[in-house]
């Protein structure tokens, strides 16, 4: 419980956890917050482009839809996209990193060289190109993001596995004749889990930002999806009059990414005190 007490003393990390928890709550139980479910989807031109008011806390967009409602609805979307991408990237990247880190020889070399190539291009650029080629839309964007994010996990897991591989208990297991799969899954993986979790948490924030860029550029979510990035791009056409159309979805991105970043930083401090940022 020492670790929990240490975490609770880290105020930014607790704040991050609170933001993330709140976002998850909103995504699952946000319906009562929504002014009127129909208003977010069905255009109502009589109430278009209204500034923030009690009735519409974030104002309304060019089609008269309530922006607060759409931001709340977008929370679930952002979390779904980032969770899917991070989970898929982990599913590809972690096993590859384990194998490449534990073995020597051609397969290990090949995996790491491919990883190098992916890490040698800015992920965003690669994801844009891939999403474009796969055909625009949210599914294509998710696939493109996962296909370009796994090398970050491979790199992390590879370095950690290399370290763990030389430890005495692994040698002992090999001496006892344990199967390689068993060693990797039951003994090495738990020992490299902490950096994976940290990477995944920070990755959540990163993917939310990146997928917002994709939505903004038109290779991600498509209308009438209440995607935050897409909403900002729609709002650009109504500047400067309807400043609220671009401002509030951007603040939502900022808040959620901030939450994941603070949480990730806090967890990294727990896992690796050498990197403590508050020092």
């Amino acid at each position, binding site marked *: 419980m020492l670790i929990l007490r240490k975490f609770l003393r880290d105020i930014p990390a607790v704040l991050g956890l609170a933001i993330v928890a709140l976002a998850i709550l909103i995504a699952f139980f946000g319906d009562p917050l929504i002014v009127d479910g129909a208003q977010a989807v069905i255009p109502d031109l009589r109430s278009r482009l209204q500034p923030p008011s009690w009735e519409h806390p974030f104002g309304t967009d060019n089609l008269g839809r309530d922006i607060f409602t759409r931001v709340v609805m977008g929370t679930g979307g952002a979390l779904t996209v980032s969770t899917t991408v991070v989970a898929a990237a982990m599913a590809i990247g972690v096993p590859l990193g384990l194998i490449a880190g534990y073995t020597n020889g051609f397969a290990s070399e090949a995996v790491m060289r491919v990883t190098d190539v992916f890490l040698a291009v800015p992920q965003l650029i*690669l994801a844009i190109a891939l999403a474009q080629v796969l055909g625009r839309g949210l599914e294509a964007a998710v696939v493109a993001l996962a296909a370009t994010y796994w090398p970050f996990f491979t790199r992390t897991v590879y370095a950690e596995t290399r370290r763990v591989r030389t430890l005495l208990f692994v040698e002992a297991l090999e001496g006892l004749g344990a199967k390689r799969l068993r060693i990797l899954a039951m003994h090495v993986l738990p020992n490299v889990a902490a950096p994976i979790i940290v990477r995944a948490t920070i990755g959540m924030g990163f993917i939310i930002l990146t997928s917002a860029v994709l939505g903004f550029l038109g290779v991600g979510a498509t209308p009438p999806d209440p995607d935050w*990035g897409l909403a900002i791009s729609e709002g650009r056409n109504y500047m400067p009059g309807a400043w609220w159309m671009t401002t509030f979805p951007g603040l939502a991105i900022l808040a959620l*990414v901030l939450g994941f970043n603070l949480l990730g930083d806090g967890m990294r401090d727990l896992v690796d005190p050498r990197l403590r940022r508050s020092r």
Partner: protein
Amino acid sequence: MALFIVRRVLMIVPILLGLLLLAFGMLRLAPGDPAAAIAGDNATPEQIAAIREDLGLDRHVIVQFADYAWNAAQGDFGVSAYSNRAVGLDIAQRLPATLELTFAALAIAAVGGIVIGALSGAWYNSTFDHFVRVVTVLGLATASFWFAIMLQLVFALDLGLLPLRGRLPAGMEVPPDITGFLLIDSLIAGRLDAFGATLSHLALPAITIAFGGLATVARFTRSSVIEAMHSEYAAYETAVGYPRRRVLFPFALKNALVTPVTQVGLLFGAFVSNAVAVEAVFDWPGLGSYLVQAIFAADYTAVLAVTLVIGFVYGVVNIVVDVVHGLLDPRVAERM
């Protein structure tokens, strides 16, 4: 050390090859038959086949790849099916604008980040330090394209202090193109009006791109300055009676700068990719807005060519950073 440098520089070969494979693979993955697209709706199958032969699409995949790689190495990325122009020429024309923007952002991030980080590290836990930490945390969580729009709203549209978009005011005569960097070209031409206009147009996009990077540099500088200020030599200097600013500058800062300097190099890649959306917001006539146009036109040739060029620039910069890091800190070179 020489061996280390050679090994790092040779790393560009597999990376380049992998990049080309990736781009070529995606080009083949792209939907639609380019030959059919060029031939138009009323073409006969024979006409399409003739165009396929013309384009070399009937050859073996490996031959096609070798051809693609050979042409790309010479800066020929093919002709855009959308604009019918050579993509390589378009890119060459637009690259300087992106580089000018990226370098300006890099300068802001490096200078600002190091100064702010050093001050907040030397006086850590002060009010200033707390303020800096909040701002840097926000900087890392901000979507750059959104920040760009917010700056436009406040500084261009509301206050009218800075121009909204573009590289020069409409109607202003562009100085003769020598380097492609307007700041330099306008000075060569002795056009101070163009220089000032370029600077004011550059301000908002460069600040936007620099913001997140400035946060990174400030963070790294801060923590390594704190570490250096806690070292024994710093304690000695303090005991001798040097004021804190003397301990910081030059003694502690000099030792603390290795990590931030390599960070600045790494930022280059991040900035080039941030530039994509930011250029689109500011109508900056660089590679980023070109990429966005190509996306909207479904112009795969152009999209992949830009990917290739940016990947290449990024890869080269990364290797330069590694080499510089090795020169600054020989322990790194020995480990690799």
